[in-house]
Structure formats: C-alpha cells, structure tokens
C-alpha cells in the first residue's frame, strides 16, 4: 500500500511522508471485481477481525483509499483519501485547480477544459491520475491528464480538454452504482 501511494505521487511525496500518512492504520485489501484498499484504525480493526473470523465480510470499512490495479494507472485514489492527503499535509499537488464554472459540468461527468483551469500543480504527466480541486481546496474528483506537463497548457485552445473525467463526487447522484463482490485479507 505504501509503495502504491508513493508511486502515485511521482516522487512529490518523500517515502517518510507517505509512511507518516498511513501510520496507525492497518490496510484492508478487498479482492473482487476490483482490488480495493481501505485503512483501518485500531478501533475499527477489532470488529472487522471479529467479522472475518465469523466467516462474514464487511461491505466497506474505515477510510476507502482507492483501487489498486495491475497495470497503469496502478493506483486510483478515492476523492476522500486524496482530500485526507492534501488536508493532512496542508498542500495540494498533482492537481488541477478548477474554477466554479468548470466544476459544474465536471460534476455532470464532463471533462476539464483549459478555459476553467486556474492553476496546474505538478508533478503531472500524460495519462496520470490528477486531483480535480476547487478554489475552495476541496477535491471534486479525479481526472486523467491529457498533458505531458503543466507548461503544455499554454499551447492548448480554450476548449481543449486538460483532464478526462475519471470520477467525480456527483457520480452517485447520477445513479452510478457497481456490484462489489468481495474477498478480503488483512495485510
């Protein structure tokens, strides 16, 4: 889990900072349609262990960290985890800061266009997962970068996409649901 998070941030976070973020938590990996990761505090771990010993599985537990994948992108964080990282460290990185006029269509599943990008915060490369962050510093979703680096934005037209919508916080309201048949193991 530490390695997946470290790699995700393209070295923007030193390993000790990543370890610090996960300290005090136990990872729970769910193997199902997707490979999903959760972080469990000590208080949450105990009832999860009791549940697993009884032969049952939790539907979800603790903090949902995101999906682990076998190919790129190897890790897709949840918006909640990304918010946790930014809030805990007090800084935003690997993200696009998007104006309110761009967030509105984004929350309907649309992509982020150059016209609404207020700021590009590296490290970003093409096909990277980046945080889509409002000027209020809340994480509104995740995008797949279409640019090789932040400098490339200046050469784009206003209507060119900078990030493809991967997930946004309006997804559930639009009716997005998925079956999650699960197998868990505690690492």
């Amino acid at each position: 889990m530490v390695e997946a998070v470290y790699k995700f941030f393209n070295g923007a976070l030193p390993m000790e900072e990543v370890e610090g973020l996960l300290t005090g938590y136990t990872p729970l990996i769910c193997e199902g349609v997707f490979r999903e990761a959760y972080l469990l505090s000590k208080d949450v771990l105990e009832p999860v262990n009791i549940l697993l010993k009884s032969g049952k599985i939790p539907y979800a537990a603790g903090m949902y960290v995101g999906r682990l994948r076998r190919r790129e992108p190897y890790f897709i964080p949840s918006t909640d985890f990304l918010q946790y990282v930014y809030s805990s460290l007090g800084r935003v990185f690997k993200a696009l800061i998007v104006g309110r006029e761009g967030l509105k269509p984004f929350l309907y599943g649309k992509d982020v266009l150059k016209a609404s990008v207020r700021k590009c915060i590296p490290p970003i490369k093409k096909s990277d997962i980046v945080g889509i962050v409002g000027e209020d510093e809340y994480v509104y979703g995740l995008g797949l970068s279409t640019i090789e680096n932040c400098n490339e934005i200046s050469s784009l037209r206003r209507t060119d996409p900078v990030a493809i919508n991967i997930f946004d916080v309006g997804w559930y309201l639009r009716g997005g649901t998925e079956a999650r048949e699960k197998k868990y193991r505690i690492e």
Partner: protein
Amino acid sequence: MPGLEEISDLYGWLKRRIKVSRKALRLSNEFGYRPYMIARYKEMLGTWNEVMNLLQAFEGSLNPVIRCNSLKVRDCSRLFNRLEELGYTLKEIPWCVECAELNSNEGVASLGSLHEFLLGLYYLYRGKASLLPPMLLNPGHKDRVLDMAAAPGGKTTHMAQIMMNKGVVVATDISRRRMRALRSNVERMSVHNVVLVRTDARNIPSIYRAYFTKVLLDAPCSGEGLIMVDPSRKAKTSLKELLIFHNLQVELLNSALDAVMPGHTILYTTCSIAPEENELVIAKVISSREDTVIEPVDPPVPHVKGIREYFNIEIPEEMGRCARLYPHISGTEGFFLCMLRRL
C-alpha cells in the same frame, strides 16, 4: 386489565376492541385515512379535539433540516452564510448548533445537488426529529456502537461526527440498494470509523454477542409519523401489516439487547406514532427478559410520555420514561424514543 404477556393473539385482541365510531369513519373519509387508524388516535390522545389537532398537523408540511458536517467543515457559520447567499432562508435550531432548519420546503430538491452537498459538507433531513437519536445516545471517542437498520446513513454519519471519527460504529442494513446509499454517504462525509455490514440485523448477536457499548435501533416501521412528507401512509398499512412490523421490531430489539454489553444502553426509536410499534414492542421485550430496564429520556423538544394503557392492555409504568413526539405538540415528524439499559 391484562398485561401484554397475558395476550397470546395481539391482532385478535386489537381487532375485537378497535371500534370505528361514526365520527372516526367521517374523519377517515374526510382526511383519507384507514378508519382503524382514526379510532386508534382517539384511544391514544383521549379527546376528539386532540385527534383533530393531530390530523391537521399531518396536513401541514415539514421543514427540511441540514446538519453541517464538522468532519469536513471547520466553521459551520460560513457554510450557512453560503447557503443564504444562494437564496435559502435558514433558521437556527437552539439544541443543535451545527444544524439549521429551512424556513420552507422551497428549493429543497436543489439542496440535494449543490456542490456543497456533493462534497459532503452537510447532510439533508426531511425533519428535525432524526437529529435526536444520535444526540441522545451521545457516543464518545471510545465507544463501540452498533447502528442497526442504518441506511441511508443520517444517524450513522451523525454519530461518527459526534465521535470525531474515533471509536467505531458497526452499521448494518439488509438491503443491497440501501447499502449503496449508506456507503455513498459515509464516503461523501469523510466518515472513517465505520464498518458497514450487509446483513439481517437479527444475525448480529451470533457475530458480536455482548460486544457493543451503545446500540441505536431506529427500527424499520410503518412510518406513521411521516404522513406530512408521504401522505400515502394514511392508507398504506393495515392492522395486520402493523403487527408484522411489531413482530420484527420485537426480534430486532431482542437482538440489540443480546449485542450490547451488560450495563450499557440501547436507544430504540421509530418514525411512527403507533403504540403497536413502540410501547407494545418495549413491553413485550421487557416482560420476556429480566435483564432490561427503561431509562428516562428527555428530548429537547416538547413531547409527551409513553402511553400506559391501550385498548385495555396495561402497559408497565416505566413506559412513562419513553418519549412520544406528535407533530401538533413537538413541531416535528411523529417519533418515538425509548432508552433501555441491559443489566
């Protein structure tokens, strides 16, 4: 007068004793209720004047309520100001500083799709009575809480907020569809101290026997207290169906008692004013076990005590420690709250 334990066929007993008078029939036609419901209201409230007050309150509307999520919002007054800028008129709720009541039902649909809502900065309720159970149970940082029938998660996320994401809440629901809503709300509101388990809550003691320090059982019910938001409930539930709820509620409450540690508390609530789903459930359970007592509960809204007699059934005196919220008295949806302690 017999106690509930002496009545083997509760349905037959009630069926024989619920007499629909001409006045009850006239009111049921006028307001669109099943006649037996009006006859029950007279038995519960005592006078036709009170019955009329209740029926008229049910014809009114309920002001929606928001709870600012202090797990994500540092200063709730800024959120409230933002909503007022967007045109919503908010009114303080004196007993819940992080909450506000909307002054009317206008624009409520859009409150569930604002950016601030999608970000999990607040939770939206149909009425303010739903805020009471987490506040009265008041779980602390070290508690192990069971929330039975938890979806869609208003009370689960509220308890997590009170606990500041410490301790743990095991939240269960039986429905796959409702479980998705629960998970979505938990993630949206950055709740990190919850274990979600999709199961029939009656199975919980086989997994967690005498494990929890607090249990919230907001029992599945007929929703007879929610007629202002869903008038179809005036005619939805027959007496027979009401007693199916009663039997399920008795089983769930017994499971709650088996899941809580001795010496600890269970809060039983419903959004129903039906004695069959409230006092008769508690009476049935405490008469069948010797390890349970009723503790006083004092919600911060006008309320009345639990009823003591119902169609010639004697209900234990300590039921007066439970609280009934009637719309015409409390200004909330109809609700019932009862705190129990396992000895």
